[in-house]
């Protein structure tokens, strides 16, 4: 199944390049460089080598026996992206883009980060390849995730706290874009999700699709057939599209993306773009968006910083429109419960982002046929969230 994008970067009606002219030529250059690199065997081999020997891929597809027993219906497999180097799927994309930037002769890397996972992964790749690295992070997030700020600094990155707007992820992206506009000739913007202007959504998807390619091989080896259901959380949407994409042509495989339901349905209390948003343009892409009736971007809330963003990758908007993927949401409380539940049932502490997917499956499992094969993408580990959970669990 072909989902695009077309030449202008559109997945159906979504995507495109809504950026100031100054960076437009850089996007065209990036598109061309990426197009050439992905056709080149040496580049692909280099990416694969670092993913294998440095990141520890392939990550296991683990049959969760006690989880399966607890659910009493489907057979549940966890795709263990939490076992990647740096603790999440983010590194897959960072290795690819850092190697591409090197190939383009750009030795300065900038990136945004919310929870800090993408910032840590970017700082790691920059250290690995000897590149200068600046990470933009909302002041609010530097407080919530101070441990990751230290990690980035230890890896040699400069961390710039962003004090404008809501002081979170979207403001960090604005500031990274401002840096890019200013230093566009020497700098590569290493965007962390399937967001932003073309070619980022397709490029990040391609680098993350390793998740789904591996999972496909692994499930066929373990069970002799394809899965019935794939589940993943959706913030910008890179871990979910990474798992889903290699299965899109398999019509019998059902796919569910789980957004952050936050603390309620009111605008400002959640990050459920599909149920609470409408079409709009933010930070380079046309997609579903949480905004008020005058087009001002709305504040968002989620207990999980990685899902706390007002827009969603344009390919997801397209997949929702075609009906190929179902999207739903899970609130803070259910996600926190699932965080504890998976920790105690399997001895795996999930990232709060991934816990949203666990929470959905926990509820849906009852209505799934016995013996159905499910793959849940465990996109990251929860060490970063221990403080949040310990301090906030009683308040939610």
């Amino acid at each position: 199944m072909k989902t695009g994008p077309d030449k202008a970067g559109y997945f159906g009606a979504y995507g495109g390049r809504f950026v100031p002219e100054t960076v437009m030529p850089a996007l065209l250059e990036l598109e061309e460089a990426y197009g050439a690199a992905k056709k080149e065997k040496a580049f692909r081999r280099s990416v694969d080598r670092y993913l294998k020997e440095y990141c520890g891929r392939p990550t296991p597809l683990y049959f969760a026996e006690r989880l399966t027993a607890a659910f009493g219906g489907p057979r549940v497999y966890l795709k263990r992206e939490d076992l990647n180097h740096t603790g999440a799927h983010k590194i897959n994309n960072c290795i690819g883009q850092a190697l591409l930037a090197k190939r383009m002769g750009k030795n300065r890397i900038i990136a945004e980060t919310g929870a800090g996972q993408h910032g840590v992964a970017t700082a790691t790749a920059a250290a690995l390849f000897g590149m200068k690295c600046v990470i933009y992070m909302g002041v609010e997030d530097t407080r919530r995730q101070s441990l990751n700020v230290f990690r980035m600094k230890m890896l040699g990155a400069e961390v710039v706290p962003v004090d404008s707007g809501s002081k979170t992820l979207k403001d960090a992206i604005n500031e990274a874009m401002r840096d890019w506009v200013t230093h566009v000739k020497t700098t590569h913007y290493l965007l962390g999700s399937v967001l932003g202007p073309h070619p980022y959504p397709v490029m990040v998807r391609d680098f993350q699709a390793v998740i789904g390619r591996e999972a496909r091989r692994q499930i066929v080896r373990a069970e002799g057939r394809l899965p019935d259901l794939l589940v993943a959380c959706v913030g910008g949407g890179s871990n979910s599209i990474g798992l889903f994409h290699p299965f899109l042509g398999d019509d019998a495989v059902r796919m569910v993306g789980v957004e952050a339901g936050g603390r309620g349905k009111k605008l400002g209390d959640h990050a459920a773009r599909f149920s609470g948003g409408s079409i709009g343009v933010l930070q380079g892409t046309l997609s579903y968006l949480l905004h008020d009736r005058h087009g001002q971007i709305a504040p968002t809330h989620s207990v999980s910083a990685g899902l706390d963003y007002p827009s969603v990758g344009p390919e997801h908007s397209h997949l929702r429109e075609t009906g190929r993927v179902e999207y739903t949401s899970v609130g803070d409380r259910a996600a926190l419960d699932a965080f504890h539940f998976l920790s105690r049932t399997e001895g795996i502490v999930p990232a709060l982002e991934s816990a949203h997917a666990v929470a959905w499956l926990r509820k849906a499992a009852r209505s799934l046929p016995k013996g159905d094969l499910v793959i849940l993408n465990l996109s990251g580990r929860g060490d970063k969230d221990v403080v949040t959970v310990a301090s906030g669990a009683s308040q939610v």
Partner: protein
Amino acid sequence: MAGRAVLRERLASLRRDGATGLIPFLTAGDPSMAFTERAIRALDRPGVVAIELGVPFSDPLADGPTIQRSSERALAAGVTLPATLDLVRRLSGTISTPIVLMSYYNPMLRHGLDRFAKRARRSGVAAVIATDLPVEEGAPYRKAMDRVGVGTVFLAAPTSSRERVSRIAEASDPFLYYVSMTGTTGSGSDLPKDVVDRLEMIRRLIATPLAVGFGVTRPEHVKRLAPHCDAVVVGSALVAAVEREKRTVDRLGALDRLVGRLCGPLAGRGA
């Protein structure tokens, strides 16, 4: 005569006279609509070819700290796109300087492009600049604006190739807005060394009237740019001058003094 036609004629007349005009920028509703209204009336003066009015946006990613703060103050005062259009409507007919709206794309898109275009036309808006809309994405927007006779101004940058500049000029009416430097609004204390060469290259390439902005903060900048373009845009410096004062009368005074100084280098040129 509609706003776009007035602005076309004003730019043509500057070109005939070998003169250059000033385009001052203010954010609508910073710190209040009442102040903006008074400020625009004060800016309606010789030497000013058009007034650029910014629609505040929650995520102004092409703007430096000064205009970001200005945008935040305006949003805090409850300013919206319709409120900005209402202000233009109150002003048009009572001032002779055309008003150009500058907005990020999402507020216009959310309003509905056709609905926005009609409303802009009725309010007397001469042209619109969409900060984050490159020509590649501009077709539906241009169609909506052109249908009602509101101009569409696109931006060109130091990174734009000759081919791109030509394409941007074709989409731009009544002028093309050249971004003097790679950076956000108001950044840098000096203009790039090669800015004059770039402007001359662009003037050889296109016949469209040419305005230059971003990083133009001092009369010396205006003096240097004026012989090589039709209009000079000053934004952050004006916003900052107003920001420094507390009382309306002092704000208007600061604005008047700075605009006077910026117009100085233009006075001897043809007009």
